[in-house]
């Protein structure tokens, strides 16, 4: 082990962090423009051509804002909470493969920071750590709104983490490995979203709750909690929370692309290495658009319904999906008949349909009871 290893790691980590930071800045711009278009407005278009310099202007403005610490806050925790929130959102990207590898100065440079054999477990554990920053921020602010926002946020995140973990399991079942590279390569013939569309959908819904996005943005419900857990934060500390949230969006879209949408795979990717990141960015871009679209379309759902949806619908459905997938693969293997394997998507969609029907009937019954 020589110094070039260290140089490579530091450079890769730094470049990945920079990519995520730039991605965060331009995601805010992308979201504002897309939302504006959907609401028949134009959106930011003054700073630079087409408003492209708007994120930089925002960043400069935030640097020159005053940092306030409330007199009654728990100072050390208050200072550390944004850091605890932002670091997991950056390092979770370490295991995501953005492409294959290329040659530079006689060295093979891989397009991922780390290739660990428990990649999915790493993703799950880092996603869990992200809760700490938020709950610590809410608690250390010593503010009623922030406290409630932090509690709500943590309860919601841990509830949806179960469904998230189970949909990770469906991807592992299909790929037969926890390494991210193996999962991508297992999708060279069929993307997992074709074989297990319900698993991908559960993953997507659970991640919306995990990153506190609309329609699950109860922790930040403006009308009742003003801003939620970061009500007392200002200046760069607030920016770090904002950064963490948007970086989590990017990273989670990247994970979804890797697990279910074929990752960096695409036509000619084995011939030209630079196509890998291009395909990955294109997929992330499209998935991010869906997240923004959801925000523009659906109203926030009530907190009790949010929790019952997570616990009473998503967890049993995700369990069913895991067992449908496992049974299909095993039957196809034992009886040597691929028909069982291709029954997986249809049976899963039927299970999801039953779940939707049960929600519908329950809601209708509730409406009668109120009337």
């Amino acid at each position, binding site marked *: *082990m020589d110094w070039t*290893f260290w140089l490579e*790691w*530091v450079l*890769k*980590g730094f470049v990945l*962090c920079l990519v995520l*930071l730039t991605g965060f800045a331009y995601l805010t711009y992308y979201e504002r423009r897309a939302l504006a278009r959907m609401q028949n407005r134009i959106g930011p278009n003054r700073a630079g051509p087409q408003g492209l310099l708007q994120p930089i202007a925002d960043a400069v403005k935030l*640097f*020159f804002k*005053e*940092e306030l610490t*409330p*007199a*009654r806050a728990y100072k050390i925790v208050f*200072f550390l909470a*944004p*850091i605890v929130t*932002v*670091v997991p959102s*950056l390092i979770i990207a*370490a*295991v995501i493969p953005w492409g294959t590898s290329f040659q530079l100065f006689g060295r093979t440079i891989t397009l991922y*920071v*780390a290739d*660990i054999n428990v990649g*999915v*477990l790493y993703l799950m554990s880092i996603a*869990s750590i992200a809760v700490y920053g938020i709950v610590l921020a809410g608690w250390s602010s*010593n503010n*009623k*709104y922030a*406290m409630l926002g932090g*509690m709500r946020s*943590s*309860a919601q995140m841990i*509830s949806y*983490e*179960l469904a998230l973990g*189970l949909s990770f*399991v469906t991807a*592992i079942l299909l790929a*037969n490995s926890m390494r991210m590279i193996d999962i991508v390569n297992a999708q060279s013939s069929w993307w997992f979203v074709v074989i297990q569309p319900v698993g991908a959908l559960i993953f997507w819904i659970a991640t919306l709750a995990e990153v506190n996005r609309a329609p699950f943005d109860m922790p930040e419900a403006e009308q009742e909690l003003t801003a939620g857990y970061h009500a007392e934060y200002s*200046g*760069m*500390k607030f*920016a*770090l929370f904002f950064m963490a949230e948007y970086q989590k969006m990017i990273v989670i879209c990247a994970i979804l692309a890797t697990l279910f949408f074929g990752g960096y795979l695409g036509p000619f990717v084995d011939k030209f290495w630079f196509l890998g990141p291009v395909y990955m960015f294109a997929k992330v871009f499209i998935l991010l658009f869906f997240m923004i679209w959801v925000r523009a379309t659906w109203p926030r759902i009530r*907190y009790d319904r949010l*929790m*019952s949806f997570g*616990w*009473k619908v998503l*967890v049993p459905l995700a*369990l069913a999906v895991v*067992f449908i997938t*496992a*049974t299909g693969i*095993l039957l196809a293997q*034992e009886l040597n008949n691929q028909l069982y394997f291709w029954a997986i998507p249809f049976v899963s969609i039927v299970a999801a349909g039953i779940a939707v029907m049960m929600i519908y009937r329950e809601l209708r019954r509730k409406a009668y009871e109120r009337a």
Partner: protein
Amino acid sequence: MLLEYIAIAVMIAVATLIAFIAIGLGELLGPKKKSEAKSMPYESGMNPYGEGTRRMPVRFYLVAVLFILFDIEVVFFLPWAIVFRQLGIFGLIEMIIFIVILLVGYVYAWKKGALEWE
């Protein structure tokens, strides 16, 4: 394989450094005009009363306890998901028995109203 974890450790250091630099720059460049009103807890303009961290509904605690139970279940799924092709039908049935035992607890919690938010 261990080298890869050092790469992650390096990345954690880089990310922490970036976070500290961002906060440091903000502290350095921003104005510092403290006042009584600014350092009060924000309560929509009303005079704040009482502590900010007060007693919370017990449901949050219940959710946390249930989460630990079911998250461990998910973690048990992971090793099985890797080797279930070798274990075959036997492993699948074993897993179903494990889940049925857990589901009994799940149904109990549901019927007791631990999952309800009025």
